[in-house]
């Protein structure tokens, strides 16, 4: 940390940071994956960052969840620790090098779920003061029913903390999940203005959403480095040329 700690919004890096936010089942991860493919095809170096990266911190989080040892406060702090590790390892170095960094969930996820758990709104914002301010933060706005259908249709059982079971909304995990997520949505909606989140209507088709995302990203990319490494398709065509 030579040079001291910079606070939110004070970082000036040549790279770009794009983040996606939204409740489970909003389709944000799909959109980010499509964005990454496109960026790479355009020749940008796009690195990816997600929650729970460092093995040491991950072990604590996993164990705490499994044994239900986490309180709202330790839940908040262990995730902030993990996020700090992401920031110091996966986010700042590539941004310094001029790369594009993509993050699936960012500080807004923590703000939403920690506040719903009863942690002070002001305190959790201070806690994350070290974060890099994103170039663009997309919020995939989804009605709860749409998200619920996507989740219940496709994936494994909902987990204890994901459903906010620690908050005692309901004995029924699906009902608890519903109440918890609807409160998370309320928090996201309050943050749209506070942080200037860019809202994407996640009830549109995947293609429509991706087009809107790419338009916004294109504008924000002006002046960003592209790699000289060619994709294998280019290399293959080069090889062909040299043979003739």
């Amino acid at each position: 940390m030579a040079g001291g700690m910079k606070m939110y919004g004070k970082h000036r890096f040549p790279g770009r940071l794009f983040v996606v936010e939204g409740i489970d089942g909003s389709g944000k991860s799909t959109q980010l994956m499509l964005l990454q493919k496109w960026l790479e095809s355009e020749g940008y170096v796009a690195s990816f960052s997600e929650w729970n990266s460092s093995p040491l911190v991950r072990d604590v989080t996993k164990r705490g969840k499994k044994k239900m040892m986490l309180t709202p406060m330790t839940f908040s702090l262990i995730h902030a620790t993990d996020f700090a590790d992401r920031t110091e390892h996966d986010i700042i170095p590539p941004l310094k090098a001029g790369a594009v960094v993509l993050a699936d969930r960012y500080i807004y996820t923590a703000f939403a779920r920690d506040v719903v758990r009863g942690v002070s709104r002001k305190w959790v914002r201070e806690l994350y003061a070290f974060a890099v301010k994103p170039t663009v933060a997309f919020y995939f706005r989804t009605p709860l029913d749409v998200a619920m259908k996507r989740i219940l249709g496709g994936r494994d059982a909902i987990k204890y903390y994901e459903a906010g079971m620690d908050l005692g909304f309901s004995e029924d995990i699906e009902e608890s999940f519903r109440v918890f997520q609807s409160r998370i949505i309320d928090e996201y909606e309050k943050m749209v203005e506070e942080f200037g989140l860019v809202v994407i209507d996640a009830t549109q088709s995947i293609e429509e959403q991706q087009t809107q995302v790419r338009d916004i990203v294109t504008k924000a990319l002006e002046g960003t480095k592209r790699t000289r490494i060619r994709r294998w398709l280019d290399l293959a065509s080069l090889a062909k040329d040299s043979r003739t």
Partner: protein
Amino acid sequence: MARFSFFGEGLPDIDLEELKGKLIVLEGTDGVGRSTHISLLKQWLENHGHAVLDTGMTRSALAGKRLKQAKEGHTLGGITMSLFYATDFADRLENEIIPALRAGFVVLTDRYIYSLMVRAIVRGADPEWMREVYGFALKPDAIFYLRLQIDDLVTRVLQSSGFDYWESGMDMHMGEDMYESFVRYQKWLLAEFDKMVDEYGFEVIDASPGIEEVFERLRTRVMQVVEQNGR
């Protein structure tokens, strides 16, 4: 009115009215004899009929073990380490310290948020930020700051375990060898602790006399704190 309060934005779901015990902190750099005095105080208080919980840093059930490993591997960055310590502290505060205070125990803690903040600050964390983060901590009833000048500190450390990688600040490349690094690092810590004396109301105790003399002073003051009602 509740006897206890938080420094800033407190913990959710804690009724401060329920906390009846006393929270007493021993602070100071490495080698000032904190743990010796804690165990002496514990025995002595128990002999006088007080139930005592003694606790210290990096001992939480949640994060203690991994935090030690992280320290040994030194692969985590400064902000990450600061928050890892804060997590460990929060777990101990909620699961050990607060329940003991609720039950009317005297809680003796070997270091508190002050050491955690000082160590984070010398590693580049923003002091104002650290203060906000530790806003969830309870204000103690008393903070005894055992203070040794750097020369005495060097002598003590040489007499006991010798220079340790972390206590010499070797992770920050402050000197060519352990001794040089230790002196610079500990001087810096002392300067940061000294800045906190007034702000947090530390009671400074000169740790240079023999153990008996220092303990005598501590014991008198601790008894006053334990026996006084309200604050």
